[in-house]
C-alpha cells in the first residue's frame, strides 16, 4: 500500500474550486437548515461537500456554528481552517463577530441585522453593526424584517440563503429546487413562502 493514495491527488492549478462557508447564529434560529439547503444544492451540482454541525447541549439557546465546505475535489478536514472561509453567514450580528478569524481577507461577511438578546451583557447593537460595517466586503440584511413583510417570519433563514446565493458557486435554480424539496412535506403554502423569502433575500443582496 506504499504511497497508494490516488484519491487524494489534487488536479493542477485553477480547475480546483473550493468554497468554505462558516454559518453561525443562536440555537433554534435555523442555522442547520441553511447548511442543509446549501450542502444539498452543492451535492446536486456534483460537488464534494463536508458539513460539520453542532448537536446536543450547545443547541439550547447557545452560540451555534456549522462548517460547510464545498469543493470540486476531495475535502480533507471537516473543520474550516482559520483565514480560509469565503463566506461568513450569520443569522445574528454579534455571532458573526465571534468567527471573524475564519474569514479570508477577501471573503464576504453576510449577517442578519436583528439581534437575539438572550444574555445580560449583550453589547450595544449599533456598536456591533458598526464593527461589521468596518469590514469592506460586508452585507447586513434585515432578514427578519423582510420575512415579516412577506408574511412569513419563520423564513428569515431562507431570506439569508437568498442573499447568500449571489456569492455562492451554485445556481439559484438548484437552491430553489432544494428549498422546494425541503418544505414539500409541509404543503404548498410553506414552499411558496420560503421561495418568496429566498427571492426577497436575493433582491436585497
Amino acid at each position: 500500500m506504499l504511497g497508494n493514495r490516488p484519491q487524494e491527488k489534487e488536479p493542477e492549478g485553477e480547475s480546483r474550486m473550493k468554497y468554505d462557508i462558516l454559518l453561525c447564529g443562536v440555537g433554534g434560529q435555523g442555522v442547520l437548515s441553511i447548511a442543509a439547503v446549501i450542502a444539498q444544492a452543492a451535492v446536486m451540482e456534483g460537488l464534494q461537500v463536508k458539513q460539520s454541525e453542532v448537536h446536543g447541549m450547545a443547541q439550547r439557546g447557545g452560540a451555534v456554528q456549522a462548517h460547510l465546505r464545498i469543493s470540486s475535489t476531495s475535502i480533507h478536514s471537516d473543520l474550516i481552517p482559520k483565514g480560509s472561509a469565503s463566506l461568513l453567514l450569520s443569522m445574528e450580528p454579534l455571532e458573526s463577530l465571534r468567527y471573524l478569524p475564519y474569514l479570508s481577507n477577501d471573503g464576504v461577511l453576510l449577517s442578519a441585522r436583528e439581534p437575539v438578546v438572550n444574555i445580560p451583557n449583550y453589547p450595544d447593537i449599533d456598536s456591533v453593526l458598526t464593527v461589521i460595517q468596518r469590514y469592506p466586503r460586508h452585507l447586513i440584511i434585515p432578514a427578519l424584517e423582510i420575512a415579516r413583510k412577506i408574511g412569513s417570519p419563520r423564513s428569515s433563514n431562507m431570506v439569508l440563503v437568498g442573499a447568500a446565493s449571489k456569492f455562492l458557486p451554485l445556481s439559484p435554480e438548484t437552491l430553489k429546487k432544494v428549498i422546494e424539496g425541503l418544505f414539500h412535506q409541509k404543503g404548498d403554502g410553506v414552499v411558496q413562502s420560503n421561495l418568496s423569502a429566498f427571492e426577497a433575500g436575493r433582491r436585497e443582496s
Partner: protein
Amino acid sequence: METMALLGDEAAALGAVHGGVSVAYGYPGTPSTEIIEYIQRFHPQRPLAVWCTNEKTAYEEALGASYVGRRALVTMKHVGLNVAADPFINSALLNIRGGLVVVVADDPGMHSSQNEQDSRFYADFAKILCLEPSNQQEAYDMTREAFDLSERFQIPVMVRITTRLAHSRSGVNPSPPRHENPLLSQVDPSGWALLPAFARKQYAQLLSKQKDLLTFTEQSPYNQLSFLGKGDPSSIPFGVITAGIGKNYYLENLDSLGKELPHLHIGAYPLPVEKIRKLAASVTRILVIEEGMPFIETCLRGVLPLPHGIQISGKLDQTLPLAGELEPDLVRKALGLQSREGVPLSSSFPLPPRPPQLCQGCPHGDTYASIKNILKELPEAVITSDIGCYALGAVPPLAIPETIVCMGASVSMAVGAAEAGKKHTVAVIGDSTFLHSGITPLIDAVARNVPITVVILDNGTVAMTGGQETILPTGNLPALVQGLGVDPAHVITIEAHRRHEKENIEILKREIQYPGVSVVIAVRECLETARKKKSQKERVE
C-alpha cells in the same frame, strides 16, 4: 448503489445495517445518538433498533443476541462505556458468536460531556480490536467489516469515532447489503460461563489471540505507511503518525507544507508495531497527531530513553494541546507552519460568551424557581444534580445544582451527604437519568431510611439529546418509587408550572424538611418535544 450524504454516526449505522446486523441497542448520548436514530428512521422494519435503560443493559442485550448467533450493534458515548464497562471487559473473554460491534463516540473538547476520556484505552484494556475511521466512508466500511472481524476472531470489536466525524456529513458509497445471520436452534454454551475455572481458560485464549490480532493490524490497509524516505534520516525533518481524523488535518496542511513526509496512518488497533518501527527507522523525529488523549504517543514513549535518540512529539511535549479537540490550525502549528489568521476583531470590542441555557418557559426552570425560593429559608441545604438539560441550572441566574458528576450520582451523593450529617439534602434528577442510574441509590436510601428528597424532573423525554422517548412513560414513576419502599405519603406528584408555584413551594419545603426518604415528581412535557409533536401532527394533516 447511489452516493449518500451521511453524518459519521449515520454512516456507521448504515454500515451495520448493510453488514447484516439483527439488533441495535443503545442509550442516547451526544455525539452517538444519531446512530440508533438513523436505523429507527430509515430502516423501521429491520433491524430492531431500540433505546435501553442504560448502556449496561444495552451491552448485555447485545451480548444475548450474539450468543444465539445474531449480529448485534451497541452504541453509546464515551462515558456510557464506563457504565457498560463490566459486560464490555468480560465479553472479551467469551467465544463471541454473532458479530458484536460496539460503536463508541468520544467527545474531546467536551462539547456535551463531563470529561474527554479516550475509548481506545478501553479497547486496549479489554484486549480487543479497535477500528478508528477518519471519514464518513470509513465509518461505513469499518463498522460493516467489524462484524466480520468479530466473528473471525470471536471477540467484540470497537469502532471509535469522535464528535467531528460523528456530526459531520459527507458522501458515502454503500455496497450491497449482506443477509442477517440465522438464529441458532442449538446454542453451544461453551465459553460463555465465566466461572473462575472457565474464565482462566478463556483469558488464556484471549491472550493467545493477541498475536493474531496484531498480525491482522500489521497487514490491514487501515494502517497505511507511505512516503518512506530512502536517504539519510537526518535529511528528513520528521515523520508523522496520524490516527482517526488527525489524518484529515495533516492532509489539509499538505499544500502549505509543500512536500509529503514519511507518514503512518493508524486506523486499526492493537498498534501495528512493525509499521511503527519501519517509520521510526527512516526519521529522527516523529510527530503524533491523534484525536483525544495521547494513546499512541504514550505507547511510543514508554519510560526508558528511546533508542537512536529518536524524538517523539505530540500532546505530551505540548506540540499539540493536551486537552480539547484537534483543529486544522493546531495541526498546522505543530507541523511548523506559519499560522493563518483571517479578519481580526478589535481586541477592545467586548465579545460576551453565549452559553447554552434552559429554554424560555422550560418546566425545569419553574421547578428551580420554586427550589430557589426555599433555599432562602434553608441556606444550608445541599443540592446535588445530574446529567441532562437541567444541569444548565447550575449557572447564574439560577445557580442551584451544586454537584454534577455522572448519571445517577445526584441520588447517591445526596445519600452520602445526608449520612455524613447534612440535614437537608436534595437530589435533582431527570426522569430518564433516574431510570438509567437513580433507582439503585434510592434503594440504598430506603434501606437505611436516609433523610433525602429526590426531585424527579419528569418531562417525559430525553431532552438534551434531542427528545428521545423516556424508556417508561410518564405516570409510571410514582408506582415504581413506591414499589422500592418509599412511603406513599411522601411520594408526591406536582405540575412543574409557575402557576402552581405557591403550592409547589409548600410541598417541596415540607418534603425537604421531612426526616426520611421523600420523592417529589415534577411533571410537565418538554417544550421542544411538544413543539416537535405539534409540527409532526401538522405534517400528517
